[in-house]
């Protein structure tokens, strides 16, 4: 069972995500528009992470872009991870984190690849959207569908994939 979105769905979900979010701290997220008028979510975040295993934690800069994929009809996460010097952190390092974080039920669902960022045309990491619809479908089945609100899709999606990638999610302080 797959959970796919239309672009209009995605757009209204982005707006709800930013305005009605009680779970994730959205202060660092903003809504942007491409030259062709498509919306996407953008965020720059600083996190403290271990880049090498058993090394000290360092500050790492993430730049997230959540765009809509027409062919897969789901959101796609593009992100770059840099040191404070602006040096990109390689796919291999991200790969290691992904395999550490993967749980059995989602093994193979989170494929991180390096690809050309559709807006900046620079190398960027991407979570390939091929399994997203399935993953979200599975999640939806596990939840109480009455409680579903528009904002929840993106919140669930971000929380799921950030966790799989080993990236800390900024939660709202209760």
């Amino acid at each position, binding site marked *: 069972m797959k959970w796919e979105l239309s672009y209009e769905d995605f757009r209204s979900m982005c707006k709800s995500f930013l*305005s009605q979010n009680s779970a994730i*701290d959205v*202060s*660092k997220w*903003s809504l942007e528009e491409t030259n062709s008028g498509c919306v996407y979510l953008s965020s720059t975040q*600083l996190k403290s992470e271990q880049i090498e295993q058993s090394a000290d934690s360092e*500050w790492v*800069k993430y730049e997230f872009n959540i765009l809509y994929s027409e062919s897969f009809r789901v959101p796609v996460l593009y992100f*770059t991870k*840099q*040191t*404070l*010097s*602006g*040096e*990109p952190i*390689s*796919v291999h390092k991200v790969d290691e984190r992904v395999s550490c974080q993967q749980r059995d039920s989602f093994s193979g669902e989170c*494929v991180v*690849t*390096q690809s050309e960022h559709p807006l*900046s045309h*620079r*190398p960027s990491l991407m979570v390939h959207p091929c399994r997203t619809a399935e993953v979200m479908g599975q999640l939806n089945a596990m939840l109480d569908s009455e409680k579903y609100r528009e904002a929840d899709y993106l919140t669930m999606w971000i929380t799921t994939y950030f966790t799989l990638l080993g990236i800390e999610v*900024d939660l*709202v*302080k209760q």
Partner: protein
Amino acid sequence: MIIPFLSSFDIGFWYQLADKKLNDWKLDNSPKIIRGHFSNALKPGLPCIFDICEQAFKDKLQLPSFCHVSNGKLLLANTKEDFSKFDKKSLLQFEIAKIIDSIHTGHCFDEPTSLMPFTVLCFADLKKYTFVYWCCFPSIHLSVDLVADINICALSDNETAVLDDATLCNDFLWAIDLNSRSNVNCKELLTRETLDGVWFVCADPSTDTKSVGWSCRNVINALLFHFGSKTKSIKLICLRIVSENNETSYRNSLVLDIPTRHALELTEEAVSCSGWEKNKDKLLPKMADLSKVMDPKVLSKNAVELNLKLMKWRIVPDLDLDKIAQQKCLLFGAGTLGCNVARLLLAWGVTKITLVDNGRVSYSNPVRQSLFKFEDAMGGSCTKVEAAAKHLKQINPSCEVDALDLSIPMPGHPVAALEKEKVTQTLQQLSELVRSHDCIFLLLDTREARWLPTVLGKFYRKIVINAALGFDSYLVMRHGVQIPGAGSATGDVIGTSSMLVSNSSVKELGCYFCSDVMAPGDSLSDRTLDQQCTVTRPGTSMIASSLAVELFVSCVVHPDGAACGASICESESPDSALGPVPHQIRGWLSQLYKQITPYVEAYSKCVACSASVLDAYKERGVQFLFEVFNEPSFLEDITGLARLKIEMEEDFANEIIALSDDDNDDD
């Protein structure tokens, strides 16, 4: 009390710098204006970041709220030595002098961010795509006594209430008049007699509960200089903004009560200062290595690897791509088959390829031999191996191709006495080549040319892939390797029965010559022109080359490597990640594109791979080879083929008297 800035560069800044240096500035190293920014709305716990982003070269930056722009300079060093020898002390003093001047003239209140300029010293190595840099944030120290006397505390309720009423300003430095409950420009305050009821506010990039940010120090100096005489104590609110749940609050701000009684002499001679950023507590520069994303060769290498990894991640998780990529491949023949095989090896990530061919590119070659272009054939044409190597490098700059213009000595082509020394050298070279590679491809255009590489390949236990073409037919096969303990039976083509020759009962597989009972001889002289150049349907060679490479890869990833048993039937469960591995693939385009996968066991009397030949080579080496080149029937003698033929003829003569064509004959 004061937390230094932590510089943060965006990769976009480096891209811009590289671009401008290559295209606009070139060798012009005059200081360039750049802009950085910092924010006083950082999440608690984050360091005091000073951002230099992609917009650094613009005049006007588009930034989120609560960001403050600082004007700075980019100083480029031409060489690493220039960078190291740069007089950092002088630069700091120069910048400090400017700040002091700005304070003296009051300009600092017109443009408060002139209190917080910065400099980036940089050496950009645009061949290696590395950037060595050092940031300087000039800051005038406060006297020790003063620091000890400054009172720092959190925002009280009273102060919160005042701020609530006032209009929060996004400026770097401003003031609040408590009486009128309105914002006041600091410059205006210069004309007042006293500072009763005035609070200063500055944006504070620090999030620490006890210390303020680097930028505050120069502000304190400026305030003391101008207002020290008007009041006993200056109240400075170091404003921090917290955005949460769509609400902004300034509850993390700190309040400084600065007593003015300590003497402040704000001159270049009197002040002490610092500003060069420390790298992990040491006064050292930092570096950004961007070769992985800027160096086109690295980008290419990574992209090719990534493409292969996708195969592994999505479809064949057990595929050992590294093992394939590390194979050193030796290609005998750089013609139709050779060019295509080489190209496909690149696609599998193989980078070490050696090409052996003695030909030059002719005008008929480029259409069929995919690594050659028309130019390669023109006047004084280049050798095939040179041209092939050149084009392979144009396809993948990371590949390492050795191009050897060598002729392979062949049985039935006697070696003249004059040539003997040269040929001996060639033989030693060929032997060493086979020994030092992992796999050899036999892609030659005659039967006899394949003899020597077959012997060497078997001798050195390498993977040997052999491809041969007919007009519209092809044979792609792998030669057997010695299996310790297994004897070899007399070989016949078993055919396509559904029987997997399992590893436990595997017999040694045959080579190209195992099905023959004649030694290879001179097949070239006396042939007509069309027989001398291999005339085949063009697609045949492409098909054969593709199969050759895929067969090779299947062997490499099979746990038994070249010694893996031959699969004949599709449904056999494969040990290899890439499916069952046949011994031979034979196909005919004109027979409805039929393709079969037979296997042939090693023939005990084979003229190329049998024990008698290998032993002779082992014992007598080059001498043995020369005997074969000069008289190939010698091979039939030592393998016992000659004797076998004599016996067969005798049997034939003795036992069979007549053959009847009549089926009804009862005999």
